């Protein structure tokens, strides 16, 4: 990786962080738990890296690590979204 790519990635990081701060700063307390479990599921985005790592044919060490990563990331993603959805289904306004 050269310095130029790094700088571009840093731009992405900084801008995304600002967006994150703006979006989340005003979330009402009712939604704190779903926000946390929902964002927790998003952090399972490493699943993308895990798929690439688990990608190669054969069975090198790096692939075995990738498969393990993929399993954990899938749990994180699917479990996280499912439980968040289950929670949000319960949030009701007064009829």
């Amino acid at each position, binding site marked *: 990786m050269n310095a130029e790519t790094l700088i571009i990635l840093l731009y992405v990081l900084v801008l995304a962080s600002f967006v994150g701060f703006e979006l989340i700063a005003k979330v009402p307390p009712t939604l704190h*738990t779903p926000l946390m479990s929902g964002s927790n599921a998003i952090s399972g985005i490493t699943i*993308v890296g895990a798929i690439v790592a688990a990608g190669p044919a054969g069975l090198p060490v790096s692939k075995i690590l990738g498969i393990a990563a993929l399993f954990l990331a899938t749990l994180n993603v699917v479990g996280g979204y499912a439980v968040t959805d289950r929670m949000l289904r319960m949030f*009701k306004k007064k009829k």
Partner: protein
Amino acid sequence: MDLKLIIQVSYLLASILFIVGIKMLGKTATARRGNILSAVAMLIAVLATLLDSQVLSFTEIFITILIGSAVGTYAAQKIKMTQMPEMVGILNGFGGASSVLVAISEYWKQAHNSGLTMDAIVAVTVVLSVIIGSITFTGSMVAFGKLRGLINGHAIVFKGQHLINAMILLIILVLSVLVVINPNIEVWMMGILFLGLLLGVLVVIPIGGADMPVVISLLNSYSGVAACTTGFVLNNQVLIIAGALVGTSGIILTQIMCKAMNRSLANVLMGGFGQTVGTSSTSGEDIVVKDIGVEETAMLFDSASSVIIVPGYGMAVAQAQHVVRELTDLLEKKNISVKFAIHPVAGRMPGHMNVLLAEANIPYDKLIEMDDINDEFANTDIALIIGANDVVNPAAHTNPQSPIFGMPVLNVDNARTVIVCKRSMNAGYAGIENELFGYPNCLMLFGDAKSTMAKVVGELKEL
């Protein structure tokens, strides 16, 4: 068609959907759709990645995803709402572990296969990813163990703790520099991994149960940062964007939780709160409390016109949310107004009480935040406190010696009558006496929250 371009455009689309999704997650009316949108974004990112030319072993990948999804869905359906904090804790740990494994896998591939040269920038990002991911992993596992009761939930402190942590961090930094200079010596990398895992355990064990909202939020933030650093390792923007969103949301929640406890983040992380504050309890020894039975409680409710219920962790432990709802329905049928006052750190994770009460079908517009309801206590007949203690302790206003002095609390003592449902006179998490219990307008209703409230409901029905 150019597959690479398709992948890149899909990642861009996924990033946009993640941002829109998390924005919608911030409003009660759109939250559910927001969550689904972000799940769609994840699906797009996954499908796009499968197009990658490096990905050849589809069978293994599909089987792994299938098993992971099945286990994840099953756990998500089975988990009790009172166990939400531990669910978030363990999933968080898995995310961290996954980031570590991806980084190590990439390291292994590069350090072995491509002629033993590794870019310095890549080496730095791999090292960062391993450090943050491993701390997230074991830290979350310890938090999970504490929440689940597998490990003593109290703060575990020992002499020289901070010194040991500082030493470990220093060694990690030295090893990191060594790895960046010469990435081919795996022992150093394994050393970083091992010490990172150890540090994760050591930084969470001194933090006590009631500080868990802060820890869970912070670990959540770490898992985002770990995903972010993995994005740098793989030169992948969608990981960086999604990771940054999670990282900032965790940080914001951490700040909110710290503010609600009037403590700095550093103070929480140093841990041991509640272990060293024995001095202030001496003044509270002469508290004389007044008992009340379920019958009298029911009669008091019957003659009231407004009630504010203050739930705490005790309600979650006793699983009393459903019977509390029955009580609410009954009181409303008698034309008594019922509201809930929610302290930001009630429970073991941010918003814990809101989820439990939602599960019991209590509409969320009945749950009022501390700042909005604090003035209402003065015009309220009964404040009913169920399993909360420190968050209603007036010492936070009146006693400068108290360790919780300055912490924002619910002004329940302003209500005409305060009824405290509590198992025993044991002090709260902070280990301090609650002078509220000795106030002339305060009545103690001893017993398990669930069975006691059930009895009150029974009495009320007969009135």
